[in-house]
């Protein structure tokens, strides 16, 4: 002990193109930007595939072949997989190769990377089901551990997920909830028996956010140094949950920062200490006991310093859009039109609301970095106009059906 549990999130939203008021009623495609800008989903997928997914997959494949002890977990959003199939099918192949080693776990999540659980449990279950189907199709794999969008989590979600048959769930190791407790153990959610994994945000963010930060006193971060920090947990922890965006490798942290070399040498450095090992989350559930129950009645997440849902539902624009979107549920489903239903669901992807976030202060820069729009107001205008168009489309469809 401790066991290192790597989980990488693979996600790309269908970004809404610049959609003007005048386009309402005329243009029903929101995700088909073709220009040379960051709203062009095809361009982004191809870029991230080249800079991050393909080279990192190669590093991981080599590691899995060289280190029989090395294991990792992935979670793929359905919308990311869909875009890979469409724009970069070779990425799917390379992920399949990883999964074929038998030492790569895949987690369950909502196909559309949505916050549906907050608005409609039926819709939430449907999206998890769709995701499972997709994972099965592509990887012939049955997930057993669930990840809420952006590590969103509450007692209620854990209960729902247990009811759906999952054995574990992930969230952020939020200080105000943990208090004196350590994130380096398995817990159980209040009201259910599944395992609760908590992200070790300090060690995770050392890689994901601080790796290339010259102002950080630990810069440059080397694999032996990081392995020492992991080993230091020996005796007072059983799992070290390193959860991060997969795009950390090559996209957020460019190749020139040395991130690939770091990753390449990290497993062997960690395994130099005889008590350390790697586990998938599912294996960790079997190996370790839950040390205590955690009561988390209000939603938390891994975002921003607040570690709550304010990045997505914190301002009136975000709440207005989400309410209007989910108000359409009944009407959309009643059309029975697969394409319309899919479009409605693509509008649910959490990123759309993240781009509309207006929190500034310390987190503003992070939001700016992750947003393809000039400002949250630009993001809102395009989204609000597209949603208006979509509402009209549904109305017209219903009218036609009546006639």
């Amino acid at each position: 002990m401790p066991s290192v549990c790597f989980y990488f999130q693979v996600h790309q939203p269908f970004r809404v193109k610049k959609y003007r008021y005048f386009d309402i009623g005329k243009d029903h495609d929101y995700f088909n930007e073709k220009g040379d800008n960051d709203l062009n989903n095809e361009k982004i997928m191809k870029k991230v595939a080249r800079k991050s997914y393909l080279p990192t997959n190669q590093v991981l494949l080599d590691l899995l072949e060289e280190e029989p002890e090395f294991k990792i977990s992935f979670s793929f959003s359905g919308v990311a997989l869909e875009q890979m199939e469409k724009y970069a099918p070779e990425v799917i192949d390379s992920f399949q190769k990883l999964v074929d080693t038998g030492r790569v776990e895949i987690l369950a999540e909502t196909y559309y990377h949505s916050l549906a659980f907050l608005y409609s449990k039926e819709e939430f279950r449907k999206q998890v089901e769709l995701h499972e189907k997709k994972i099965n199709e592509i990887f012939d794999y049955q997930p057993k551990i669930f990840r809420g969008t952006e590590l969103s989590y509450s007692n209620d979600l854990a209960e729902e997920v247990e009811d759906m048959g999952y054995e574990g769930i992930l969230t952020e190791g939020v200080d105000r909830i943990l208090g004196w407790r350590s994130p380096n153990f398995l817990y159980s959610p209040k009201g259910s028996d599944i395992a609760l994994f908590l992200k070790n945000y300090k060690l995770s963010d050392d890689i994901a956010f601080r790796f290339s930060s010259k102002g950080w006193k630990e810069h440059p971060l080397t694999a032996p140094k990081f392995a020492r920090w992991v080993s230091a947990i020996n005796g007072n922890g059983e799992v070290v949950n390193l959860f991060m965006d997969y795009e950390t490798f090559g996209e957020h942290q460019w190749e020139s920062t040395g991130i690939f070399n770091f990753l390449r040498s990290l497993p062997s450095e960690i395994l130099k200490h005889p008590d350390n090992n790697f586990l998938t989350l599912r294996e960790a559930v079997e190996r370790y006991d839950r040390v205590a129950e955690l009561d988390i009645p209000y939603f938390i997440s891994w975002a921003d310093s607040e570690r709550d849902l304010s990045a997505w539902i914190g301002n009136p624009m975000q709440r207005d859009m989400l309410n209007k979107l989910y108000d359409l549920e009944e009407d959309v489903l009643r059309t029975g039109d697969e394409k319309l239903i899919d479009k409605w669901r693509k509008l649910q992807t959490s990123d759309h609301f993240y781009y509309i976030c207006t929190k500034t202060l310390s987190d503003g820069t992070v939001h700016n970095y992750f947003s393809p729009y000039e400002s949250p107001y630009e993001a809102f205008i395009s989204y609000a106009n597209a949603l208006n168009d979509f509402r009209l489309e549904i109305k017209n469809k219903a009218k036609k059906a009546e006639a």
Partner: protein
Amino acid sequence: MENIKVLMFGWELPPENSGGLGVACLGLSKKLNQKGVDITFVVPRKTEAMKNNFFNLLSADINYKEIEVKSSLSPYLSPQKYKSILREEKDIYGKTLFEEVSRYRKCARKIALFENFDVIHAHDWLSFGAGVEAKKITGKPLIAHVHATEFDRGGGTGVDERVYRREKEGLEMADKIIAVSNYTKNIIVEKYGIPETKVEVAYNGVDLKEKPAGKKILEAFQEAGYKIVLFVGRLTIQKGPDYFLQAARKVLDHSDDVIFVVAGSGDMEEQIIRQASELGISDKVLFPGFIRGKDLHSLYKSADLFIMPSVSEPFGLTPLESLINGTPVLVSKQSGVSEVLTHALKVDFWDVEEMANKILSTLNHDCLKTCLSENGKKEVGGITWDFAADKCISVYKSLMK
């Protein structure tokens, strides 16, 4: 350490202003004074109102002197306009604006010899000449502070060569230049051939407080369900009122219940009124003329969206006034203020289609309006003169070494 002593050349102080320059000079000087800088402020002409205002604003214990040079300068005068004023006024010294500038320049020599100071700080082209003379005669370092250039005033229609020459001389003679925005810095570098490293940026601050509104205006329109979109500014090419009307036309193509208010006067007034009728929107455009004081605050408050479509705006104070009054703003990207405001809608002045898109989107979504106005109002509260004053002080110190 002894206080830094600055000989400052300006040309007006509130309330004698036809623009924001006097306000900016006063705001900056006041803050510099608080930070321990002694200023001798020179203006070409002093009026009673200016004197009162001035000394009321500054307490008696600060070492702040004002020296008057007889002149009839006003910062936004074009040479043509100056001639027309000449005909009307009798208390005039020179025959042309440029003669007045020369006279101010000559007086500066005397002042520089009598006064005790460490650095010279001159605001905009009319006082650059004075600053240059003061430098020549004393050898003290000169800072040229640019609030506007001839390229802004011309709004892309060409520049007065005589003004440009004087601006360029001042910029070249200066040891350091302070620009009110990166937008202005770029103009200085590109159009005047000044090395980038010589230009520092110091954003203007504001000293705005929400004031009680006067009598309600446009109430009848609001009650009838109209939304109100507002323009406030001089009706000149620089301020882009014509783009405002073009955007209005596009908005009205999609939405009937919007009223557009053009508040201001200027040499484009007739043209703008004509344009409104040519576009067929005279019934939806109001021209209340030049509005100030309480009525202006009421006007801001009654509007749903304020627009500053300037073709070229070194900084731009009106959007901040609007936000203080709780009205969200859309500003042109060709402005300095767009660099400091994050909670504002932004658009290229010529992109009237996008302007209309943003107007319609704002009028149709109350939540957008609310977020823009609440966050924007907070943001304006943080735009103070501290930043500009600190920047000036660091420039002074770098030149005194």
